C-alpha cells in the first residue's frame, strides 16, 4: 500500500499542494481526479521522487519510499516520452534492465507485453515510425515491463481510441488483480467512473474527497430519488420532508431531508394514489460528486 501523508509543495510563492493525504490500496484501481492545474501531476511527481515535497511523507508498506523502492515502481508521465529513434522493443527492454531486470527477463517481458498490447509486430520499428496511439501503447509497455510493485499513470487513456482503451484497461486490470496498487489520473470522469475502485478528488491542491467509488456515491447521493407513477406526480410537492428537484408529468425527481423513513413515506403515498412504475434512488455520477466536492 502506498500512503501519502500531508504533502505540501510550493513553487515560489504559489502553494500547489497543501496537506495532501490519501492511500492507494493493493489490488485496486484508484482514480485520481482533478481539474487542470489542481495538483495531480505534481503529486505524482513527488511520489515518484522526480520532485521533492516541502512537507509530508510518502511511504510504501510503512517505510519511506527510497530510490531502490521507486525503481520497482512503474510510471507513465503525463508528457509522454521515449527515445524517438530507438527501436520499440529495444528501448522497452532497456528500460526494463534499468529498472533492475536481467537482460533475458527484460526481453521476455517486452515480447509478452507488446503482444498483449497488440504491438508485437512493430517491435523492431523505431518509436517515431508508430502512430500516436501505438506510441501510447509502447509507453504503457515501458511502464509495465519490469512487473512493477506499484503503478502510477498520469492520464493513461488520453489519446487512445475506444478499442485501445479496452486493450490497455485489460492489461492494467490484470496487474491490479495480481495485487498491484494502481493510481491513475484522469480528467475524463466517465472513464474513471467505469474503471476505478477507489477515487481521490483533488482541487486547488487539497484533497476534496477520497474513498471507495461506491462509498463516495452513497455519501454524496443517498437522498435523491426518482419516482415514476401512472398519472401526474405533482402531489409529491406536498409530502413533508420532500424538496422537489424536477416534476415532469408522471415523473418526479426529489431530495429528502434527513428524517427517517421519508423515502418510505413517499412510496406509500404513491401506492395509495395508484400505479407506481418505478421508484429508484438516483446514484450520482462522479461528475456530480466531482462538482459537489470541489
Amino acid at each position, binding site marked *: 500500500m502506498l500512503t501519502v501523508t500531508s504533502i505540501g509543495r510550493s513553487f515560489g510563492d504559489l502553494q500547489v499542494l497543501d496537506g495532501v493525504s490519501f492511500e492507494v490500496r493493493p489490488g485496486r484501481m484508484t482514480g485520481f481526479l482533478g481539474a487542470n492545474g489542481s495538483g495531480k501531476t505534481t503529486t505524482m511527481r513527488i511520489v515518484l521522487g*522526480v520532485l521533492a515535497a516541502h512537507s509530508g511523507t510518502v511511504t510504501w508498506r510503512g517505510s519511506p519510499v*527510497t530510490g531502490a523502492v*521507486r525503481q*520497482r515502481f512503474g510510471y507513465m508521465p503525463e508528457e509522454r516520452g521515449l527515445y524517438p529513434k530507438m527501436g520499440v522493443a529495444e528501448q522497452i527492454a532497456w528500460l526494463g534492465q534499468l529498472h*533492475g531486470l*536481467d537482460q533475458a527477463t527484460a526481453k521476455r517481458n517486452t515480447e509478452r507485453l507488446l503482444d498483449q498490447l497488440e504491438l508485437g509486430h512493430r517491435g523492431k520499428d523505431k518509436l517515431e515510425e508508430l502512430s500516436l496511439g501505438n506510441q501510447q501503447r509502447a509507453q504503457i509497455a515501458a511502464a509495465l515491463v519490469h512487473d512493477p510493485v506499484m503503478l502510477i499513470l498520469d492520464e493513461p487513456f488520453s489519446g487512445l481510441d475506444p478499442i485501445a482503451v479496452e486493450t490497455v484497461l485489460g492489461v492494467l486490470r490484470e496487474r491490479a488483480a495480481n495485487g498491484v496498487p494502481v493510481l491513475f489520473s484522469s480528467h475524463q470522469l466517465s472513464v474513471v467512473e467505469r474503471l476505478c475502485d477507489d477515487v481521490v478528488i483533488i482541487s486547488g491542491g487539497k484533497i476534496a474527497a477520497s474513498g471507495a467509488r461506491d462509498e463516495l456515491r452513497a455519501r454524496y447521493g443517498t437522498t435523491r430519488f426518482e419516482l415514476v407513477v401512472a398519472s401526474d406526480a405533482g402531489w409529491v410537492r406536498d409530502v413533508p420532508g420532500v424538496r422537489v428537484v424536477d416534476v415532469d408529468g408522471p415523473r418526479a425527481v426529489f431530495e429528502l431531508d434527513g428524517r427517517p423513513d421519508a423515502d418510505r413515506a413517499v412510496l406509500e403515498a404513491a401506492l395509495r394514489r395508484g400505479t407506481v412504475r418505478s421508484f429508484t434512488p438516483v446514484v450520482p455520477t462522479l461528475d456530480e460528486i466531482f462538482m459537489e466536492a470541489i
Partner: protein
Amino acid sequence: MTTATGHEGKTRGFAAATRLIAEREVKTFLRSKGFWIGLAVTVIGLFAMSILPTVLGGGQTKVAAVGAKAAEVLVGTDLEVRTVGDLSAAQDLVRSEEVEAAVVPDASGSGVRVVALNDPPTEVVAALRTAPPVDLLDASEVGQGQRQLVIMVFSLIFLLFGMGGTAIAQSTVTEKQTRIVEILVSTVPVRALLAGKIAGHVLLTIGQILVIAVAAPIALRLGGHSDLLALVAPALGWFVPFLVLGFVLLASMWAVTGSLVSRQEDLGSSMGLVVMLVLGPYFAVMFFADNASVLTVLSFVPFSSAIAMPVRMFAGQASAWEALASLGLLAGTAVLTVLLASRIYSGSLLHTGGKLALRKAWAREE
C-alpha cells in the same frame, strides 16, 4: 542500496545503472550515420594531409645545369639536376617548364647565374646560397617546424574532440525534449545518468582516438614521413591521457549545457561558455607557442594543459614531474567539475520552457 520493499527481484545499483546508460549512449552513436561520417572525414583528412603533398608536389624541384661549375655547386642540394650541353638548351627546358630554373656559368664572383621564367626561383636560389655554419649553445632536440606541426595537430585534435562533446549536450536535450527524462529520473539517480553519459562518450572518444592512432602511422608512412612518425610517437604517450581527462572535464560541461535548455533549437544559446573553453585553449596555445613562459602557464591551466603540456614534453621543455603535476591538476579539476555539474544537472534536468540561468539551476536542486 538495499531493497526496502521486501519484494523479490534485484535493484539496479549506481554502477550498473551508469553502465546501462553508457551502453545505450555508445550504441546509439555507433548506429548514427553522423558518427561514422565524422570519423571517416577525419581519417580521410589525415591521409590526405600526409599523402597529397607528396603526390601533387611531384617530388623534387628540377633544375638544368650547364657546365662543370654549375654541376659542382648543385652537388649536395635537394634538387633534381639535369645536365644539358649549352645555354640555349637550358633556356628551352626553362621555357617549356620542364625545369624550374637553369644554373649556367657566369663570369661573376660565384661563377654561376640562374635562369628562370617569370619569378626568381626562391627554392633554387636558397639551395645555392652557402649559409655559414651555426653553433647552438642550447640546442633543442626537435626542430622548430616539427614542433609547430605537433602543436597544430594536437590543437586540432583537441578542438575536434572538444567540440565533439556537443553530442552529449544534444543527447541530454533529446531526453529533455522527449520527456523520457522523467522516467529516467524516477528510475535511477541523476548522478548515474550524468556519469553514464560522460562514460559513454569518453569511451566513444577513446575509440576514435585509437582509430586515429592506428590510422596516423599508416598515413604518415604512406606519405613517406616515417622520420616524423618516430618523432611524434613518444609525444602521443603524454597526449592521450591529457586528452582523455580534458574530455571528461569538457564532457560534464557539455552535459550541463544540454540540461539548461529544453529544445535542440535553444542549444546555441547555452553553448557559449563551453565553446569558449574549447576554442580558448586552442587559440592560446597556437598564439603563444613561441612564448616559453606563457606556454608554461598554459601547460598547467586545466583545459589548455591538455595541449600545452604534451607539446612541452615533446619539445623537451618540461620534465616528467611537471607533466604528472599538471595531469593531477587536470584530473582534480575534472572530478570537481563533474561534481558541480551533477548538482546543476539535477537542478535543471526537469526544467522546461526557456533557457535556465546557471545560478538558478544551482539553487534548484531538490
